[in-house]
Each structure stands twice: as C-alpha cells, then as structure tokens.
C-alpha cells in the first residue's frame, strides 16, 4: 500500500452502481473475463485506450459496434504491448507539442487472453517492461485458447481436458507462473485479481491508478464454455478458486509480494474441480484419488511458503 493513497473501496456498497461498459457484447453468457473487465472499466473510467491482442475479447469491438467509450486498437496476438508503446508515445508527443490538451490524456490498457500473455505475447511484454512503459496490462486468463475452442495454452492447469489434451488424464503440463515471471522484471505493480472478488479487484485498480510504469494484472476468468460448467456457476467457481487456494490473490510492489486474501481454512481443491467438466475424469467413472491428491499437494506446498 502506497502511503497517502486514499482508498475508496471498503465495502460492496462502494462498488459503482452504474456501468460504463456497453451491453450487447458477443462474449459468452457468464463470461468471467467480461465480469473482470466491466468492473475494472467502471473504476478506470472512459479516458482509456484499450489495446487488444487477438483473442475472445477482440470480438468486443466489431465495427460498427463497440462497448467502449474511449479508444480501442486491435493488434496481432504477440504484439499488444508494442501497440501500447505506440499509442503511449503518440499521446506523449502530441501533448508535448500541445496538439492534445493535457486533460485529454488517456490511460493505455493492454487486454489479452492467456494465450497471448503466457505465450506468444511474452516477448513484447517483457520488452515493454524493460522500457518501463507507462501502461496497464490485463490478462484475462481462462486457461486455454478459448476463442478457437479451448486448445491448451501455457496457462492450462495440470489435468484439465482441453480440445488438444483429450486423453484420459488431461493436460500433462503445469500452469506457468506468470505472476513471478512478470514480477521478476520489477515493474511498478503486478497483481492477481478475479471478477468474483470485486472489492479486492477495485482496491487494486485504485492502487495502480496512483502509479506510473508497467502495471500488470492477471485475472482468472472462469469460462463456462471452455471449462464446461453451467454459466450461472461462474461467480461460485471464482469464489472457490480463491477459497481452495487455487487462485492466490496477491500483489507485487517494490520487490515485495503480499497476499491480499489468505484463506483461513482452505477448502479441499476437489470442491473447485468437481464443478467443472474439464476435470470430470478425476471423479468419473471412478475417483482418481492419486490425481486429486497430487493437485491438492501442489496447492498446499504453495501456501506452506506463504506468510503474508
């Protein structure tokens, strides 16, 4: 917490009651990524330029329709942070040359999925952090290439069934620790968020608004389509991701990682897993005790090292 930053978000009643993001987007019913974005946008406000790498959310703005009230730029999957650099530089130069009034300055916000953030966009992101680009990056992480039918990505968790890991044990790899990779660049801010915890999200957005430099956010984005569950469970699954310790809510500032929500009594991870079709093979036709225990052990090992 930066000294002197006022915090407006204490309780749910502090959350905005009107919403900036237009309705009528083509995101799936129950989209966890959209939930994050609309809550984030309410706080960031309309003076924002979104730089959007190819993914589900590029469908947000399809001419002549857009849910945004400010600017939007579409880039290829690997180059959204490079696009953000261009937009930032252009605005800085215009302001310097007095071609753009200072009060019309806008915040540049990169929005990409996990396919881009954890994989092919990583080099451009690393470069943007090297150059200390003044921007915000939101990765909506639905743990696979959701827009094209949920192929596995570097963010796919161990054992999840995807359309490219259909075997009886699901995805054999492990979810990449993007938070640590980003934090290792020592940017101004890195945080994990989730739409199901709007207050935690709001506090973090508010905090990063008071900073300059790269401000990086990873939001777990429960995905009814890709994870195979009833859309009405989106928030419930989000809550369980936090309560079971699958999705630690944390932030990195000044070389230090702090958890913003440490579950006192973590729920067993199977409560999270069993609601999702992509993990059905762990429970049906027979329970895979060993598989579940391994997933639980990795979560426990993570939290054993967490003190703050």
């Amino acid at each position, binding site marked *: 917490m930066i000294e002197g930053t006022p915090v407006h978000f204490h*309780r*749910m*009643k502090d*959350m905005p*009651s*009107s*919403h*900036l*993001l*237009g*309705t*009528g*987007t*083509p*995101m*799936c*019913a*129950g*989209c*966890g990524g*959209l*939930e994050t974005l*609309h*809550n984030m946008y309410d706080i960031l406000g*309309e003076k924002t330029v979104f730089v959007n790498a190819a993914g589900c959310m590029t*469908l*947000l703005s399809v*001419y*002549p*329709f*857009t*849910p*945004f*009230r*400010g600017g939007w730029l579409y880039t290829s999957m690997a180059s959204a942070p490079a696009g953000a650099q261009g937009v930032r530089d252009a605005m800085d130069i215009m302001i310097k040359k007095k071609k753009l009034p200072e009060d019309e300055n806008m915040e540049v916000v990169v929005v990409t999925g996990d396919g881009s953030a954890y994989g092919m966009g990583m080099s451009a992101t690393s470069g943007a952090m090297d150059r200390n680009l003044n921007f915000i990056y939101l990765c909506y992480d639905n743990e696979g290439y959701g827009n094209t039918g949920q192929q596995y990505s570097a963010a796919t968790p161990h054992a999840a069934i995807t359309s490219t890991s*259909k075997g009886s044990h699901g995805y054999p790899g492990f979810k990449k620790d993007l938070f640590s990779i980003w934090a290792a660049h020592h940017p101004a801010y890195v945080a994990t968020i989730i*739409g*199901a915890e*709007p207050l935690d999200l709001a506090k973090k957005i508010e905090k990063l608004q008071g900073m300059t430099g790269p401000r990086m956010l990873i939001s777990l984005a429960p995905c*009814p*389509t890709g994870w195979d569950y*009833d*859309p*009405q*469970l*989106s*928030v*419930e699954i989000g809550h369980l991701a936090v309560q079971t310790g699958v999705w630690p809510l944390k932030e990195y500032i000044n070389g230090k990682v702090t958890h913003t929500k440490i579950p006192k009594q973590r729920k067993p991870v199977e409560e999270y897993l069993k609601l999702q079709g992509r993990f059905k093979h762990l429970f049906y*036709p027979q329970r895979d005790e060993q598989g579940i225990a391994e997933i639980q052990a990795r979560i426990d090992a993570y939290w054993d090292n967490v003190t703050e």
Partner: protein
Amino acid sequence: MFRIRFHGRGGQGMKTASRILGTAFFIEGYEVQDAPRYGAERRGAPIFAYVRADKVAVNERGIISHPDLVVVSDDTLVGMPAAGVMQGIDQNTVLLINSHETADTWQQRLNTQAKIIILPAQEEIEDRAELPYIGSQCAAAAAALSHVISKQTFTQALTEELQHLGDEVVKQNLAVASTAFDAMAPHSGIVKESALPSATDYIKPEWIELPFEKAEISAPAIHSGATSVKVRTGLWRTMRPVINYEKCSGCWWICSTYCPDGAINVTDDKLPDIDYDHCKGCLVCVAQCPPHAIESIPEHIAKEKELAGAKS
C-alpha cells in the same frame, strides 16, 4: 447433391449433429462437406451448421442458400429473423421442426410452400439450451429423411463421433436417435437431392444498381461510445431471471456488480432492474442474490405470458 442446414442454439449440439450426419454420408460413400458457421457462436445464441453430400466431388462452397432440408432443433428460433431459419426455403425444401405443435399449425403460421415435418418434442425441457440429445435426434431424423443412410450406418457414425464422451453417453444418444430415425420412416426419401448448379443455366438476377458510395458513407467513422447496446443479445436467453421485488432486500447491487454483462441497472431507488434486451440469461444473478430474490423461468413461457398479457 444433398444440401442440409441445421439450426439451433449454441449448446444444443448442432455442430455435432452436422458432423454425425456428415460422417454417416461419408460411410455410405458420399463426398461430404460439413461445417458450423464460424463466428461468435455462444451458448444460447442462434447458430447453424450445414452438410453437403454428393456422389461426386463437392465443389460448392460457403453457406447453403438453397437447402433441400432445414432442421430446427428449437422451434423458438423459427420466428426469429436473426436466426435465418427461413432463408432460401422454397417448395422443394423440407423443413423439419422439433416442436410440440403440429405441421398444420406451422404451415399456417409460416405460410410457406415448404414441406413441414414435425420431430415430436420430448417432455418439456425448462432450459432450451439444454435439450438433451437433440443433436443426435436431429441428425438421425435427417439421415432417415434422406433415405440413403441406413440405420446401421447412422449408428456407426454416431458412435464414432461421440466415442470420446464415453460408452454411456453413446448408448443414451443411440437410444433417442433410434426413436427419431424410426419416427421419420413414413417420410423416408422425402428429401431429394437437388441438381448441381450449372454455369450455362445461370440466370443473372435482376440486380438493383446501387451507385458506389464513398467509404465515409458506407463505412463511416463512428464518433460515439458504447454502440454495442444496439446489439440485442437478449435473444440468446433461454432462461429469464425475474426479480421478486418483495424479496429484494435492496442490498448494495450485488447482482449488478456480478452480472458479467453489466445488464442489471440500479434505479434511483437503489433497486436492481434487469435489461432484458441484453441479458444473455447466464443466471449468475440468480445464483448470487443474497436473499434469493431472483428466480429463473423459461424464456418461452415468459414470452407466452407477455403475449397473453398484451392480448387481455
């Protein structure tokens, strides 16, 4: 060539239906093309998939504009212009509708020359996005109507396509598909192959000459925000959340914060108000409302009630 179009809602398995039917044609020795329309198909949204099958190479491409058979898994889509069910239908087209209502009713309602056949709807399902097995039923009915796919071939195709879901799923799908296949027996062969279009027979349509417009007229720059509200995503909804204001505790708009689409507005009296033009029916609000003041009812029943209310 057989040209068959499947219409349904995202989640009902129309893409799978087209795959099963395509595979069945293939096993019977046909050249086959099957494809879902690629786009922003989402659960509950109107979607379609199509199959072309011929004994010679299929060179026709793109969306089927003159179908020999149109299969509709959900009769609430028929009257929805955005679903495009009626597109390109003429007297040679067979229209197969999964419905509780009779062919006569639909014939009158649609005032079409197409031959209408009813695939009798099973027991009433609350959530139309979850019609179980409808994809397999539609594929089986289409196969039977074509007369060129044997039941044995169909069984083989369905098994191949659904094998990855496990034996139990295959068994259940086969059971309902078999009933649908048999139910179509009286109409077997009603769907006829239509001829290949010939370049020499091509009759140039009577074009309306529209002068070329400048780009700024046909695709103008839009200096306005949040134009997406013009898109009525409420059409996707199969279940409608309804707020019981007697139970609503007027909390801090938890439903509005959680609604992924931001489709719940908060009134000046601090009460939530659902925007049905855009609510996609995910029902997150129903699941999260602290005093359980939001319940869900099937959209088609809600619509019927609205109509009845408007008439009385």
